[in-house]
Every structure is written in C-alpha cells, then in structure tokens.
C-alpha cells in the first residue's frame, strides 16, 4: 500500500466531505433541505458518540478486558430506549429555550447565570482536551501503520507533523462550516450531513473488517465462538463494580458530553426524530460492537506478540494483504476521529465564545452592546475558540507524547463530563434546584475529579508527587488521591467516579435546599420543569416601554444580521398592528427577541445585552396592575352586560304595561263611543218626538209653546254636550291655548261663586272663605282656572244633600304651590266611587237630577293638567272635598 496513495485517498475523502457540506448548506439556504433533516440523518449524526476510541480502541479494550467494552455502549442504549424519561424533555427544553450548548442549558436553567456557564465550559474544555488529543493520536498512529508498511518511496513523516497537519485541517474545516453564519438555532446543516456520511463510512468499514475476519480468516460464527473460548480474552472475569459503574457512567456521558448534547439537542430539527433515534441509535451501537470481540480474538491469534491491539482493525487486514480493506478501515477510523473533533470543536467553541469571551468583552466595553459590531466579534471569538480548542488538543498530545492507552483517556474524560449530570437532571426535574447548589456541586465534583482521577492520570510525580499518592497531602492519609476517606482497594476510576458524583450530588442537593433562588431562577426553573405543560412561556418580567425600539433593532442587527433582524422586527410590528419596522417594546416582544438572541449568543449573554437596554428584569407593580386592570375590564364588561340585561327586562315590562293600558284604553274608547251615542240620542229622541207632535198641528198655543220650549232646552243640552266634548278633546290633546297672566285668587273665586250661583238658585249656601289667605296673585290662565272653580262649586250646589249646606273654601300655599280645597258638608262620595268621579260620563246619581253630561270633572282634570297642577278627591273631610293644586307661577311657554 503506497503511502502517497493513502494521502491522496485521504485528501479526496476530505474534499468529498467538503463538497457534501457545501452542497447541503446551499440547498438549506435555498430552503429545499427538508429531506436532509430526516430521522436517519439525525440518528447517524448521533454516531459521533463512536469516536476513534470506539473504532480502534474497542478492539484493544476487548483484548485487554473482554466484554467490559460493551458497557460503554449498553449505557447509551438504556438511555435511548428510555428516551421518554430524559431525552424527550431535554430536546423539548432545548428547542423551546433555544439552547446553544450544555453550558447554556445549565446557565439558562439557573437564572441565566454566567458563573455556571463558565464552570460548565471549563469542565467541558478540560475534559474534552485529552479526548481531542486522543483523536489526533489515533489518526497519527494509523498513518504510522501505513508508513511503516510502505515498501517504496516516501519516508514516513514524523508523528508531530502529521498531528499538526490533521489538527490544522480539522480547524479549517470546522471554521469554514461551523462559523459561516450565526443562525438563530445554532444549527449546522452542512456539518451534520457530512457527519452522517462519515457515520456510514465508519460503520461500513468496521462491518467489512468484521465480516472479513469472521468469514475470511475464521470459518464462520461457530469457529469464532470456539476461538473465543480458546483465547486469552476468556480469562476475563466480569467485575460487578466496573460493569455497573461503567454502564451508568456511559449513560451519563451520552447526555452530558458537549458534542453529544450538540447533535442530540442543539442540532435537532424535529422532536419526532428522537422517536426513531430511540431504537436506531442503539442498533447502530450494536452493529459497531458486533465484531469487536472476533477482531480482537483473531488479532491476538494472528498478530505477532506485542502488536498494539488498539490498531488491530487496521493492521489485521494489512497483514493479510488486504490493502483495499485496510484503506477502508483507515478511512473509517479517520471519519470517527474527524467527525468527533469537528463537533466537539464547534460545541466547545460555542460555549467558550458565549460564556467566556462575550461576557468579558461586554464587561470591558458595555456600550458596545449597541454600537459595536457584535456579530463580527462573536464569529471571530468562535473561530479563535475552535482554533484554540484544537491547539489545546494538539498541545496535550504533544506533551503527553501519545503514549497512554486510548481507552483510559476516554473514560477519564467521561467521568469529567458526568459531573454536569446532577445539575442537569436536577434542573429539569426539580424546581427547587438553585444556582448556588448547582455551582457548589459542579465545582466540588470537578475538583474531586481533577484531584482523584485527572491529575493522577499523568502518572506519579508528573503533577502530583508520588509521596502524596502514598501518604496523602501533608501526610493526611484520608486525602490520598486514590483512597479518599479511607476507601482503599477500589478501582481508581470507580473510586473517582463514586466520590466525585456522591460529593457533587450531595453539595448540589444541600446547597439547593439551604439557599434561596432569585425570581429569574424560579421563573426559569418552572419553565424547564414544566416544559410539557401547555403554554409555559413564563413571563420574563421585562418592564415594557423602557427600551428604545430603534436601539433594540440596532443591537439585533449586529447579532442576527441586517435582513433577519429587520424581518423579525417587521413581523413583530405587524403582529402589533403597526406599520414599519419598529414594534412597541412590549414585554412579550422583548422576551421573544431575547430568546432569538439567545439562540445566537447564549441565554446569559442575551439576557445581559437586553438588560443594558431595558433595565432591570423584574416584574413591576405596573405589570401586575396591568394584569389586574385587564381582569377588571373583563369584569366591568360583564357588569355592563348584566345592566343591559336588566334594562331590557325593564323595557319589556314597560312595553307589557303599555300594551295592557292600550288594551284598556281601547275598551274605554268603545265604552265612550257607545256612551256618547246614547247621550246624543236621548235629547234627539225627545226633539224628534215633540217636533212630530207639533207638525200635526191643531194644538193650543200654550201646548205648542211648551213643546217648543222642551225642544229648545234639549237643543241647548245637545249644544252644551257638544261644547264639552270639543273642550275635552282640545284639552286632552294638549292643544289648548293658555293666556298666562297675573290674577288675584280671591277675585277668581268671586267670579266663580257668582257664575255658579245660577245653578240651583233655589238653594242657599253658606260660603266660608279665608280672605286673607286668598290674597295671593297667581300667574296662570285665569279663565280656565275659574272654569274649574265654577264646576266644583256648582257640583257642590247640585249634589250636597245637607239641609243647611255649607261650602268651605280654604287656600294654602307652600313651596311655590297653591292648594285650594272645596269642602261641603254633604254625605260625600262613597269610597269605591272616588276613583271614578274624574272619568268621562261618570255620574254617581241618576241623570235627571244632575242634568249634566258627566264631563265636568273630566274637563277639570284636563284643565288642571294643562295648568301644571292637579285635582284630587280629598277623603275624610266630613263631606265631598276636592283639592286643587297648582303652581304659584306657571312658566309654561304657551
């Protein structure tokens, strides 16, 4: 296998990946990348869990410790088939809160605390650096394999330069595709697709080698089982502690590794993809581990003693002269290493730039949140971070010399990131978890991990002196790095895992219980824990109206870019019913903007930037009042409706009453008509009868005169009746003309008494008057009022049945009104008739005696109504009594 051909294949492969990523990015930009974000691509992208550590290292692991390597894949399998517990919630939270990294998740959950963001970032970087070094080492080692096997030509380059070339190439690729845009969801379609391609390559490569080993070198499965039983691998004994511990460790790591979080949560395009990944990813892991033991067994048999079992995947085909297969295996290993490095670099760079570079930069230049070109700074920070992460990895590789066994470094890194687990699970399931508790737990766990596992991994006397290992610092025995608190004889890895997580979780729980969270923490805690409850977008409590929309727009443009920011603002303005690009800075709008910015620069930074423009983040009394007044408005509206309802009921009742009255009036009208025809008919009958008698002639003169007198009387009666009717009709229609003038009440009574004396002149009446009280001037229509008086007085003259009739007229005036009472000493009117006397044609006694049409009192009532007064019967006065009430000064414009 010529070495230059290998380099050529490598370069061609990288160019292919470039092209895939580039084409996908272009299609995504054109909006036609729907199929690219399928559950299959999502599942394949998750395969970055299988790094070169899996590809090469698993075989070495199996050669050393038998089936124990399976724990690294069984743990994630359990997590994924149990996706309904944790992963579903993580993905939902990640999408709802626009989480950009695991550091962002922790920081956002605990009140957008940047301190936690920094702690998690530091843990992630420290834990990932050896892992990146591991990938560089594996690529370098695999190059070396080919170089030493090369028979002609090219001298193998030295290890250092290979590693540096690989690191630089990866940095270039990552920067090119990882920081092209600062899009809202921090998703990288191109890179994810390229990784999916790499996932297929590494699976196919490992399966191909496995099939070659099982059916090419051995004689099928049965032979392999026999070989396994015969091989030294079977001397392995399952260690219960390590078996359980490593399974749980890998289960924790698959959720907390920054690169896994990146593809699992951040790059997730659709929550439903998780349902497919829940079984497809375990399937991928199973296929990846299926041939590990056979390759290890056959490798141990066929390869010379002392050959590195970590490279059996490569060296076994090569030793059998299978150059093509070896090439495929090499590309598989290359894919494993590069995909892991790319995603890890992106994830770490996002964390470093969002939680360390940006906050420091904002602290140094607070004004630049608005004025500076944030977008350029963020992208630059991210590019530098990617380069920095890879440089760190290379430095670690160069310093450590790449000698350690691959598997050991991987597990150390796992324990490091597992420290994030308590804060993460506590954050999404326990509302009481606080920032202080999380910070305490993370710090303590990280410290224990460093002291008990990470630093000792450099070997005695490298960082920690051998004396400390043996006797503990300052001779304190129970602080020995690998025997903390006197726990001895435990596997160092398990020992560190046990103590770091126990202390971490304890500090986290106790710290959370003892401390008190800030309002923002409580709001975020509720939003995270209750993410599946409908509409949990809790109010963030931005006070509306304090920020200038224009300043917000300027800031958003600096981060999101000009076009996206403008369209975001325009749609927000349209949603508020405004034209143009500047929506009102309502709490809702600012909250949405913060979420959108958080998708680019992380929750803590976005919160800090918005805070600078808006002010403090508190729920103000005004907000509460606004909510309260909204409720009050609704209440008022319902009250108004109720009032309207009452009004309608009242109107309906009034209408019903009016209808009843109209019906009654109609009956009255009929009665009136029949009455009036009767009244007209009686005089007409006598007139006709007497005139007929007179027409027959031959009657004495005296009889004729008498008959003519009767006819005359009846005609007069008819005329009076008609006059009364006309008068009443005029009065009832209110069309009467009033001649208002000042007149003396006494004089008016005199006139009335004089006129009424013609009625029954045979009777002598004693009139009692109070002349002093009568001396009052009224502004009224004197003639009409006298008409009323005449009527009352003549009625008294007509009906008073006393032997010595007395009529008392008393006058009083009170509060601008004058009352005139006419009281006689007769028997009065019976109680049940009192209401009828003012009705038309009401005659209480027989008609002949009265000699009237019965319209008098009806006319009086109408006259008084026209004069602004009333007339009423006064009961209980010892006789018939009528009270006329009228205003002293009638101001009617007539």
């Amino acid at each position, binding site marked *: 296998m010529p070495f230059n051909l290998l380099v050529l294949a490598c370069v061609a492969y990288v160019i292919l990946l470039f092209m895939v990523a580039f084409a996908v990015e272009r299609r995504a930009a054109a909006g036609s990348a729907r199929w690219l974000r399928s559950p299959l691509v999502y599942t394949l992208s998750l395969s970055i869990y299988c790094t070169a550590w899996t590809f090469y290292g698993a075989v070495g692991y199996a050669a050393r410790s038998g089936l124990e390597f399976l724990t690294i894949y069984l743990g994630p*399998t359990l997590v994924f088939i149990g996706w309904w517990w944790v992963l579903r919630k993580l993905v939902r939270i990640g999408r709802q809160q626009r989480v950009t990294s695991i550091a962002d998740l922790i920081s956002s959950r605990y009140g957008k605390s940047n301190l936690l963001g920094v702690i998690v970032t530091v843990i992630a970087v420290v834990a990932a650096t050896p892992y990146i070094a591991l990938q560089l080492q594996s690529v370098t080692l695999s190059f070396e394999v080919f170089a030493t096997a090369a028979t002609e030509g090219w001298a193998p380059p030295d290890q250092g330069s290979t590693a540096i070339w690989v690191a630089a190439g990866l940095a270039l690729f990552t920067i090119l595709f990882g920081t092209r845009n600062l899009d809202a969801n921090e998703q990288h379609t191109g890179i994810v697709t390229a990784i999916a391609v790499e996932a297929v390559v590494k699976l196919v490569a490992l399966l191909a080698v496995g099939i070659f080993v099982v059916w090419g070198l051995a004689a099928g499965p049965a032979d392999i089982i026999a070989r396994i039983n015969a091989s030294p691998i079977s*001397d392995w004994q399952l260690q219960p502690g390590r078996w359980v511990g490593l399974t749980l460790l890998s289960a924790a790591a698959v959720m907390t590794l920054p690169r896994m979080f990146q593809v699992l949560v951040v790059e997730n395009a659709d929550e439903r993809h998780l349902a497919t990944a829940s079984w497809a990813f375990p399937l991928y892991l199973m296929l990846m581990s299926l041939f590990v033991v056979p390759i290890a067994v056959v490798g141990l048999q066929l390869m010379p003693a002392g050959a590195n079992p970590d490279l059996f995947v490569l060296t076994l085909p090569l030793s059998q002269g299978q150059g093509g297969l070896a090439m495929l295996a090499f590309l598989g290993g290359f894919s494993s290493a590069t995909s892991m490095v790319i995603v890890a670099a992106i994830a770490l760079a996002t964390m470093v730039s969002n939680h360390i570079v940006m906050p420091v930069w904002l602290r140094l230049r607070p004004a630049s949140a608005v004025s500076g070109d944030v977008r350029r700074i963020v992208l630059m920070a991210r590019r530098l971070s990617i380069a920095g992460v890879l440089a760190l990895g290379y430095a670690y590789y160069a310093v450590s010399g790449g000698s350690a066994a691959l598997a050991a470094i991987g597990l150390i890194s796992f324990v490091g990131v597992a420290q994030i687990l308590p804060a993460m699970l506590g954050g999404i399931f326990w509302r009481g978890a606080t920032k202080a508790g999380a910070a305490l737990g993370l710090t303590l766990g990280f410290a224990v991990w460093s002291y008990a596992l990470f630093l000792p991994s450099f070997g005695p006397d490298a960082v920690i002196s051998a004396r400390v290992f043996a006797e503990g610092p300052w001779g304190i025995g129970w602080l020995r790095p690998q025997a903390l608190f006197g726990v001895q004889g435990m596997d160092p890895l398990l020992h560190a895992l046990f103590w770091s997580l126990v202390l971490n979780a304890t500090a986290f729980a106790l710290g959370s219980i003892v401390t008190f969270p800030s309002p923002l923490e409580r709001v975020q805690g509720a939003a995270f824990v209750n993410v599946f409850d409908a509409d949990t977008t809790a109010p963030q409590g931005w006070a509306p109206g304090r920020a200038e929309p224009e300043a917000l727009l300027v800031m958003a443009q600096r981060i999101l870019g000009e076009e996206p920011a403008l369209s975001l603002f325009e749609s927000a303005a349209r949603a508020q019913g405004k034209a143009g690009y500047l929506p009102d800075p309502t709490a809702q709008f600012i909250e949405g903007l913060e979420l959108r910015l958080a998708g680019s620069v992380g929750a803590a930074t976005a919160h800090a930037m918005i805070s600078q423009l808006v002010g403090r983040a508190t729920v103000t009394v005004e907000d509460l009042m606004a909510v309260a007044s909204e409720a009050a408005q609704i209440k008022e509206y319902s009250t108004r409706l109720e009032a309207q309802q009452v009004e309608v009921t009242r109107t309906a009742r009034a209408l019903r009453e009016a209808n009843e009255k109209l019906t009654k009036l109609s009956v009255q009208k009929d009665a009136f008509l029949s009455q009036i025809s009767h009244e007209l008919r009686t005089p007409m009958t006598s007139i006709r009868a007497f005139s007929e008698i007179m027409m027959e002639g031959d009657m004495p003169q005296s009889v004729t005169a008498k008959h003519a007198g009767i006819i005359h009387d009846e005609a007069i009666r008819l005329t009076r009746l008609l006059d009364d009717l006309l008068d009443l009709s005029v009065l009832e229609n209110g069309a009467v003309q009033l001649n208002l003038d000042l007149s003396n009440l006494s004089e008016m009574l005199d006139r009335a008494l004089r006129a009424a004396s013609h009625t029954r002149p045979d009777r002598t009446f004693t009139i009692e008057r109070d002349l002093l009280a009568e001396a009052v001037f009224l502004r009224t229509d004197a003639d009409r009022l006298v008409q009323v008086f005449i009527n009352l007085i003549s009625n008294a003259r007509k009906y008073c049945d006393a032997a010595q009739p007395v009529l008392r007229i008393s006058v009083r005036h009170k509060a601008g009104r004058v009352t005139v009472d006419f009281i006689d000493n007769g028997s009065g009117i019976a109680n049940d008739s009192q209401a009828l006397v003012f009705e038309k044609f009401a005659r209480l006694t027989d008609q002949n005696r009265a000699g009237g049409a019965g319209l008098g009192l009806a006319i009086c009532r109408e006259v008084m109504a026209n004069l602004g007064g009333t007339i009423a019967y006064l009961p209980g006065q010892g006789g018939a009594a009528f009270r006329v009430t009228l205003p002293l000064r009638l101001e009617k414009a007539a």
Partner: protein
Amino acid sequence: MSVRKPPLFLARRSYRRRRLRDAARLLPVFGGFLVFLPILWAPAETGSRDTAPDGIYLFAVWAGLIVVAALMSVGLDRGSAEDAAGTEDEA
C-alpha cells in the same frame, strides 16, 4: 351467538397510549436488569470459559430491546403527534 359486551372504557385509545408511555418508562429499567444480570452469573465456579455465551446473551438482550423500542416508538410518536394536534380524547 354470544352477545358482545360493550367496552368498559370509552377512551380506549388514549388509555392504551398512556399505558404505552408507562411501558416506555419501564423499558430502560427492565433493560438495566437484563444487562446487569450477568453479574450474578460471574462468580459461578463452573470454570471461566463463559465469555462467548455471555456475549451472545448480551447481544440477544440488546437486539430484543431494540426491537421492542422500535415497536413502541411508532405508537409513542403517533401519540405525541395526536396530542399536539389536540385530539387527546376522541372517545
């Protein structure tokens, strides 16, 4: 000729869906039990040549869990999609 009894539960589908979710929550616990079971075999004094059977057992468990998870994921996915569409209980 038997008269079919009316179903006792009206919302059978949503009831089934909730039990399916219970099953999805139980699956990892059950899987954990099966994965940790070899611990109890390990100290057996029947000689140390049991790596191959252990491996076959573990891969069988693994494949079984994958198949069960795949079967359940279809129902779970459809269930959550229907929930999202707001048709929680269509009798």
